[in-house]
Each structure stands twice: as C-alpha cells, then as structure tokens.
C-alpha cells in the first residue's frame, strides 16, 4: 500500500465538528431528543463495547459469537429509545434527573473520504438522579462525522466506557 499520511482537515472543519460535539451534548443535557436525532445520519451505528478484564499475556480469541457490545443501535433503535423516554411512562426519569455532559480531548482527523472525519473525544457524564444519588461516568468515543449539506451528522460512534462494572443501575442516558 502506498498510504501517505493524510493532511489535517481545514481549520473550519475542525471548528465546525468540535462545535457539533458541544451542541450535541447541550441538546442531550436539555432533553431535546428530537434535536439530537436530527444530528444523526440515516445509517448511524451507535455501539458501546463490552469489556472483560484479561491478563495482558492472555491470547484467548475474542468471543466467537454474541454481541461483544452492551448495545449496538441503529437509527430505528435509537428512535425507539427516544420514544420510550418521551412516552411519559418512564417513572425513573420523572421528576427529571440532572445530567451534565462535558466533552473534551477532541481530535478531528481526516479520512479518505472528503466529506467525512474521524473524531476522538472524551465524555464525562454527571448524573444526579431522582433519589439524589450522583454517578460520574467517563467514556472514550471514536466517531465518524459526515458533512451533508450545511450540517455535520454523526455516522458512527464507538463508545468505550471506563468501568469494568457499570457503576449505575441503568444506561438511560445517551453518551
């Protein structure tokens, strides 16, 4: 292969995509779930990896079958989750939880496609639940963002949660 390092994306792209990440976090914090769905590509893939603590020297193959993920959603599934949250019957979210997301360590990298960029970021999520308990979740994210018309849309997100045991009883919130 004659792979040459790709030139970094233009500054305008880096700014636009970084702003998209911040906007996305604000929409989710404000429970503007329709606004969030509108930022997703039609073919979006949204996955949370399942981790297992293994010795570094362990060469066992990964699971031959099964998900290897905690969730692996497409747009239909994400709409279903949003419908559920909007149904008015989610007792665990009423009164609302206080959630705040902080996005950091944003790196925007070029890809072979002109209209797509690879984006690494770190998400810290503070959840203060209806019973007052607080959880802090952190995750690394690797995204693919695609420019369609004047907007950048999320085409794929791989989430790696930094907890071998989920420190909360549910993952109602989006990462």
């Amino acid at each position: 292969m004659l792979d040459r390092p790709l030139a970094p994306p233009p500054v305008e792209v880096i700014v636009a995509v970084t702003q998209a990440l911040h906007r996305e976090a604000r929409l989710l914090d404000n429970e503007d779930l329709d606004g969030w769905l509108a930022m997703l590509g039609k073919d979006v893939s949204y996955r949370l990896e399942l981790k297992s603590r293994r010795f570094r020297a362990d060469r066992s193959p990964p699971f031959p079958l099964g998900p290897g993920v905690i969730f692996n959603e497409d747009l239909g599934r994400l709409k279903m989750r949003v419908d559920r949250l909007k149904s008015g019957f989610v007792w665990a979210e009423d009164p609302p939880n206080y959630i705040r997301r902080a996005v950091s360590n944003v790196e925007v990298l070029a890809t072979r496609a002109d209209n797509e960029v690879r984006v690494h970021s770190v998400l810290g999520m503070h959840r203060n639940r209806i019973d007052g308990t607080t959880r802090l979740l952190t995750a690394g994210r690797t995204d693919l963002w695609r420019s369609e018309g004047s907007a950048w849309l999320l085409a794929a997100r791989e989430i790696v949660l930094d907890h071998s045991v989920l420190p909360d009883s549910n993952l109602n919130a989006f990462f």
Partner: protein
Amino acid sequence: MRFERIGREPDYSRYMDLKEGWLDRRIFSDADIYEEELYRIFARSWLFVAHESQIPNSGDFLTTHMGEDAVIVARQPDGSIRVMLNSCPHRGNKVCFADAGNTRRFVCNYHGWAFDTAGDLKGMHEEYCYDAGDIDFKNHGLKNVAKVGNYKGLVFATFNSDAPSLEAWLGDFRWYLDMILDNEEGGTEFIGGCIKSVISANWKFGVENFIGDAYHAGWTHDSGTRSMNNGQPFPPIDMDNSYHASVNGHGWEFGTEGVGDLFLLGRPKVMDYYNKIRPKMAERLGEMRSKIFGSVASASIFPNVSFLPGISTFRQWQPKGPMQFELKTWVIVNKNMPDDIKEEVTKGVMQTFGPGGTFEMDDGENWENCTTVNRGVVTRHERLHYRCGIGRQIEHDTLPGIVYRGQYNDANQRGFYQRWLDMMTHDEFGKMPARPEPQLGNVGETRDLPGLFAL
C-alpha cells in the same frame, strides 16, 4: 463443615408471617441480618458459579464470587471442573485478577506463590528461604470448595460438605429447569460475555422480582412495552391458565400461552425458530412444558440466580453488603441453534434486558429505592404486604411443586422467604422441612416425565 458466627441466636421467625403474608423491612438493610445470610445461606447453599460452556478447554478459568467469597472456577486437564478460593494461603491476596482466560498457573502478586489450575501449591519466589519443616506444600494449596455439581450445563458449587446432592437440592424444580436447559437436543451454552453492573439495593429484591413478580411488568415496564409494541400496553394476564410453582425456595411463574416472552424479545426469527421446534419439544418434554416455554414467565433458583426462559437473559445477584449487589448477566441459547438465530437472540436480549435495553432500564431504581427507603428508622418497623393470591393454592395433576393459580401472585415470593427463614433458622440440613415433600424424588431424569400424572 460449619461456618458459624459467634454469639448470635436471634429468632428470625419474628421477621415474617408468611401465612398472614407480611415481611419485616429490616431484612432488606440490617447489617447483622446480612452478615448472618452470608454464613447461613451463602456458605451453606449450592451456588451457581459458571455455565460449562464458558470454560470448554483445559486451563480455561473464570473468576466469580460465592456470597462475598472470591473464587476461581477452572477446567482441569481431565475435563473436570474445580472451584477454589481466589485467595493465597500465605497472606490472603487474590491470586487471579482477570475475569476469565486460559492459564497453567495462578501466581500471587505479593510473594510469587504459584498454584496450578487445581489449586495445588507448586512453588514460590526464593523458595530457599523456607527450611525443611516450614511448609507442607500439600496443605497449602488454594482451598477447594466442598462439592462441585453440574445440572445440564449449569455448574454449581457449595462450601458445605453436609449439603445434599445437587439433584436433591434442585429436587422437583428440575422438571421446570429442563424447559430452559433441555428443550432441544444438545443442551445450552452461554454466548458473548458477562455484563456487570452495581446496584445499590438488597440482593433479595432482584431474586424475588424474577421468582414471581409478573405483576410489576405491566406498570414498571409500561414505557418499554409501548415502545416495542406500537404504543400498546402490556396485555392482560390470563389468571385461570397461568401459575406460580415453588420448590424449596426456587420458583417459576408462567403462563401457558407459549408466546409472551418470545414476543417481548422482539425478534420474529426467534419466535419462528421455537414454533418450528415446538412439536419436537412436546415429544421431548411433554405437552404442558412445550406450552409453558416461551410464555410470559420468569424464574429464580435459590438463593441468587434468575432467568427469563424465552427471552434468554440469565443472571446472578451477587451480594456486596446489605444495600448493594453486583448484577451479572449472560445470554443463554440452545447449542444446536443455527448461528443466525443465536445472533438474533443476543440482539434481542441486548435490546430488552441489557443495561441499555428497553426493559432493564426500569428495574434498578425501584429496587434501590425500596432498599434505601425501607431503612428509615421508623419505616423499617412497618410491615410489607406479601399477601397477593394467598388463597389460590391448588393441586395440579401435571405441575410439581407448591402451585398457585394466577400469574399475578406473591406465592413464589412467599416460598422464597420461607426457604430463607428455614435456612436462617435450622442448623442442620436434614432437619429442614421439604417444601413440598418431593414428588419426583425417585426420578433420575426429569426430561422424560411429562408431569405428575405420569407417575
């Protein structure tokens, strides 16, 4: 062998009256009661430790807990499975911090004491520092449990050398277990990994939810049901043709309509698959069990394992203090299913009862809030109501166990707490009452037994 706490002989019968149908709330948060549960229930019961498919090859191992005791479950070169304390006999450190893997040795990080997969001590760092007579290698291995047993792929272990056989422990409940473990030639396997989450609730709330609480589904999971069912709520239950069955604290609640849980899984191909094998299942397990499988149902094995037959989530509630447990979940499938159906099952489980699933997201907070609120110093002295369906016990000519009519019922929960009380009260297993008297006591294989009428 007995593991006992010193100086505590409380009367646990004051914490419940199951004929009247109430429980004292203190059993869900009291630290002394919890400590006693570890001794009298977790150190004496048969506890689920693995599915044999998780460790197929020699040297395969996984780490888990029996009560709060850390253990290693390891496949031996001769194919047998050993279960041993994950604790070095030198200073007590864990000898294995991985969740699972394959190895020839477990080596303690502290002084390099090394054990083979049977737990035998094989050597240590700077072995010359021990003089002759300082240490007997034979007596300083990892402590093995008293007994290991396997029921159709599920591996159980107990620290209790006086425990009855695993078959006797499961007893007539084997008739029900066959529906998930033996509904097709080839048996079952776990696929994918284990998802772990921590829930700030008493472990018994998880077990009792799965053992009998069909009642919560239509309300707690209203949002999830509607989002998966075109806005329609949970359908009404057929109270005449659905049941609770309880055997020595194990319990299965179920309908007989055959499709409810398969529908909730949300994967039509899986429904088709089971409809295709259902005639064979009827030949294998009898008409009744082939109708129960796939219905709205849930079950628990005493003390801390639960599953949803048809939805295929399998889980264990590991106690971590009176007000916390770790939930471990797996996906169980039939080994002989085609790969695409297995994939469909795992997708369905992930989307319904994974931590991001449409149903799972509703349960945890209820249990957490039951636990913390029940701890209030005045609140804890109030009784909780467990009387639903208390007059609906029936004799059934097919179904073993203590059977109640009507799936919305507290009967299995009462059966679970009765067994809890029996174990907290009785020092000797032999003196513990059987509930009910075993009806299939002499039956070696329960697959070929369509029901009680066949006896």
